[in-house]
């Protein structure tokens, strides 16, 4: 009697928050500068809050993080600005003035809330997400998109790039990170 082979369980693509945090820690980040974003709330910011490593500086507006990161960089300390894409859009002038005109390092991790993670950001069904990479390209800002755990290695590369080259680099989270 022949039996039909049971379907192999398929692992759905995922981006694990704890794995992202490990990459952040091993990249030498001294502070995370953050505003809450529903995209990263459960999988990243809550676990980070619980661990306290690295410590969080909570912001009133995202562009403050650009000033704080620049101040820390003068002291030889690395920071990661964690925000939603709306905060990135709100911070364009600070990016231009501080990070680009002044040639100061900035590592950003940007949640693409509402994006379809199977598509590149510029093909997003959400207008606000769709314009993110064209704007970064127009400003000459390097960006890397994380779709799932296979992209985790991009985090350290991007952070090192920001601090080695003294320029802004954006890490875009296409998928909402899961807690573990």
């Amino acid at each position, binding site marked *: 009697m022949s039996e039909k082979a049971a379907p192999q369980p398929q692992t759905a693509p995922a981006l694990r928050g704890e794995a992202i945090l490990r990459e952040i820690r091993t990249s030498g980040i001294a502070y995370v500068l953050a505003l809450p974003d529903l995209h990263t709330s459960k999988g990243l910011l809550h676990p980070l809050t619980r661990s306290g490593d690295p410590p969080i500086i909570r912001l009133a*507006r995202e562009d403050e993080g650009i000033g704080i990161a620049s101040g*820390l960089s*003068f*002291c030889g300390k690395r*920071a990661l600005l964690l925000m939603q894409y709306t905060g990135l859009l709100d911070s364009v002038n600070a990016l231009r*003035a*501080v990070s680009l005109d*002044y040639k100061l390092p900035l590592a950003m991790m940007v949640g693409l809330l509402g994006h379809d993670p199977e598509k590149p950001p510029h093909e997003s069904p959400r207008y606000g997400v769709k314009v993110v990479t064209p704007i970064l390209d127009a400003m000459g800002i390097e960006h890397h998109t994380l779709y799932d755990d296979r992209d985790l290695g991009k985090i350290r590369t991007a952070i090192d790039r920001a601090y080695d080259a003294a320029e802004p680099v954006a890490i875009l989270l296409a998928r909402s990170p899961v807690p573990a």
Partner: protein
Amino acid sequence: MIAHDEALEIIKQHVGDAIVIAVYGTAVDWHALRPHPLNYFSVGAMGLAASHGLGIALGRPDKRVIVLDGDGSLTMALGTLITVAGAAPKNFVHILWENGVYQANGGHPLPAREVTDYAGVALAAGYRAAYRFDDKVNLAQQIRSLLAEEGPVFVDLKIDPGPVKKRDYKPLRAQALRDAFKAALARA
């Protein structure tokens, strides 16, 4: 009201080797009055001086950080007072140049000139202490102890706006100044 130049002179006498972050017209005049590698200038994106200062204060808790902010600049980023209060850097002194006008942009009035109580806002935001001065004698008598207080401290100076001056901000943007600042911080 305190004259702009007199306020700068009084502060200069007491800053010692502190890190000083200044904005726009105050930055130009401070740089001329106290040329020092531990000066940093926040021009190009209004409202970020306290943010730069907070980053430096967190990165160098052993150094006193003094921000010479403008009321036009701070008005663009009042929420920063809350961020600073939350981070609560003990080495942070935030001095506001309240002249009521956008001095760098033609001398136009602020939206609520002589209405907003900036010291009250800072205190309500959670600064450890906030002070207000409208005469130079009191400022000269108290500034030394204020600069040494545990932060975050806010000092609101009522400054005579005087005539609008044309200033050259370009030298403040020089890469050499930022390089010197970074090197000085590494030595300090």
